[in-house]
């Protein structure tokens, strides 16, 4: 018997980043087990593993590679996402340090380990060329997130949101799995290339099965990236989760979900994508409108950012509605800007959060007088999320809207622009509270120097990207060209 008919050493080299991350996660757990769990050391080990995984991901960024007999596909698109996850993971680890110490959970090695496991899951999701692998990645990601959300064991809100997320998430997983089963029933395979062949050769067993399958898969994804009618879990979970986990939760899984959705609709259901455009149109319009209007009435900063992230998912789904090279590269650009900005904003929120206070918009009154630099950074983040011209948020929104306009979705773009106008109100409300209230701020911010340095770097990067977005645009265009 020949082993190489199942897999070769090239396959193992292809998943080297995942292997490295697994080993890193296990070493982090070992360090904790041996009680050498000084938070600094654990952070260093985890960061080292992430760097190493990133370096190995670069090595494979040549031509398109098909691994494990068509289960995984490596190309520039997947490498782009690998880097996005690694960046988000590193930033989350850096920002978490001070917050976990404040909440008395700093020495627990599960935290970085679970984030590493989540990153492995997400990498599998955007490398997958098979519904089974997407499911595997999605589950690895979700299971890690369920625990991370309920990480503060002695906090009732954290426990509640963990349980809520687990119950609803498990339910949504059922939808995804049922969709995959029906697609398999219709096409006779779960492989993307096989599904395309079955559709083009018209060997589909039943159009109804395929229709139901795609619909259920879409519901599964819609839950994970919190599109409106499936967003109900997100404000509660985002509010209850530890603040730095919320930052991770509203960026990385969203990127992975949209990445996997793009691959799914661009590779497997490419010929029937146009039949689903109405659904995407409605999902997009509903998600951005309801997300924005709900965000208007929030007083809790975390809830406000939660609804804002729902509305951003609505903008992103526009890119999947259009689904050409321009729109995919716009989605990638948007994901980078949105992720990094959200992480920065949540880092500041986590610094301001205290036992009973620090999460209400009122608590931010007069903050600028005491922390001018942090307030300036927060202002840049809010302007970037709102999409104001000198920041990268403007370039991101502009790219997405122009991609939609060029394909004739004028109505949707008008709705999107109106939504952007509405969103300015709640983003600027935070800024107004920080700068234009005469009250003396009583917030005591607690943070690590390293975290603040990175918050500053993100803020500067957002301005630079807003003025000269060319470099990142080149990268995303190249990444998008490999899937479009």
């Amino acid at each position, binding site marked *: *018997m*020949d*082993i190489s008919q199942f897999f070769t050493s090239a396959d193992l080299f292809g998943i080297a980043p995942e292997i490295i991350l697994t080993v890193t996660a*296990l070493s982090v*757990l*070992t360090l904790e*087990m041996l009680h050498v769990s000084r938070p600094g050391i654990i952070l260093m080990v985890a960061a080292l593993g992430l760097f190493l995984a990133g370096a190995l991901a670069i090595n494979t960024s040549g031509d398109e590679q098909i691994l494990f007999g068509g289960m995984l596909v490596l190309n520039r698109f997947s490498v782009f996402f690998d880097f996005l996850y690694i960046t988000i993971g590193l930033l989350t680890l850096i920002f978490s340090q001070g917050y976990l110490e404040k909440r008395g959970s700093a020495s627990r090695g599960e935290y970085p380990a679970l984030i590493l496991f989540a990153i492995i899951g997400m990498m599998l999701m955007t490398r997958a060329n098979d519904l089974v692998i997407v499911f595997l990645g999605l589950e690895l990601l979700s299971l890690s997130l369920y625990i991370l959300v309920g990480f503060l064991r002695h906090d009732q809100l954290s426990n509640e949101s963990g349980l809520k997320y687990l119950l609803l998430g498990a339910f949504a997983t059922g939808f995804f799995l049922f969709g995959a089963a029906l697609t398999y029933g219709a096409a006779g395979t779960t492989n993307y290339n096989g599904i395309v062949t079955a559709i083009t050769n018209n060997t589909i067993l039943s159009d109804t099965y395929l229709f139901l399958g795609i619909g259920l898969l879409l519901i599964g994804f819609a839950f994970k990236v919190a599109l409106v009618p499936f967003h109900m879990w997100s404000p509660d979970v985002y509010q209850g989760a530890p603040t730095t986990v919320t930052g991770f939760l509203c960026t990385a899984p969203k990127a992975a979900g949209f990445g996997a959705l793009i691959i799914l609709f661009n590779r497997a259901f490419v010929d029937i994508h146009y039949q689903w455009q109405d659904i995407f149109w409605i999902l997009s319009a509903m998600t951005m409108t309801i997300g924005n209007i709900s965000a208007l009435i929030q007083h809790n900063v975390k809830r406000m950012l939660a609804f804002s992230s729902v509305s951003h998912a609505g903008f992103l789904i526009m890119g999947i509605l259009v689904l050409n090279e321009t729109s995919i590269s716009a989605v990638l650009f948007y994901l980078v800007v949105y992720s990094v900005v959200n992480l920065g904003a949540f880092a500041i929120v986590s610094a301001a959060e205290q036992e009973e206070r620090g999460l209400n918009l009122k608590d931010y009154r007069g903050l600028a007088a005491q922390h001018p630099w942090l307030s300036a950074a927060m202002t840049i983040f809010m302007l970037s999320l709102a999409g104001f011209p000198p920041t990268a948020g403007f370039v991101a929104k502009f790219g997405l809207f122009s991609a939609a306009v060029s394909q004739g979705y004028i109505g949707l773009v008008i709705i999107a622009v109106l939504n952007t106008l509405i969103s300015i109100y709640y983003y600027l409300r935070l800024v107004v509270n920080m700068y234009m209230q005469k009250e003396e701020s009583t917030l005591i911010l607690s943070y690590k120097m390293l975290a603040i340095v990175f918050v500053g770097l993100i803020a500067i990067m957002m301005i630079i990207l807003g003025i000269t977005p060319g470099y990142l645009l080149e990268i995303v265009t190249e990444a998008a060209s490999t899937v479009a």
Partner: protein
Amino acid sequence: MAENYLPILVIFVLAAGFAFVSLIITHLVGPRVTNAVKMMPYESGVDQVGKTRIRFSIRFFLIALLFIIFDIEIVFLYPWAVVFKDFLSAGSFIFFEMVVFLAILAFGFIYVWRNGALEWE
């Protein structure tokens, strides 16, 4: 084709009918004498000692979770053992592959152990 199944349908209807009719008739004509002992939940002739809805220690769930993991280990080990000899001719890869799998599981077990999840107090 379908008429072949007619006898089964007849038996099914008869059986269901007999069950329902007996239930209804005993309900209608049977005498009914109730007392406290007779209305007690019956458990092997032993008097009940408390409510059934008691709270279990979380440790039971922990043990159950650990059990499932090792259950899965056996599920994977069994087919591996069946094909082991065929694959061995192609090198010792199959052996080390399972060693890696078992090592990860063993790591989890040690982790749980060291963190005191198995302490029963």
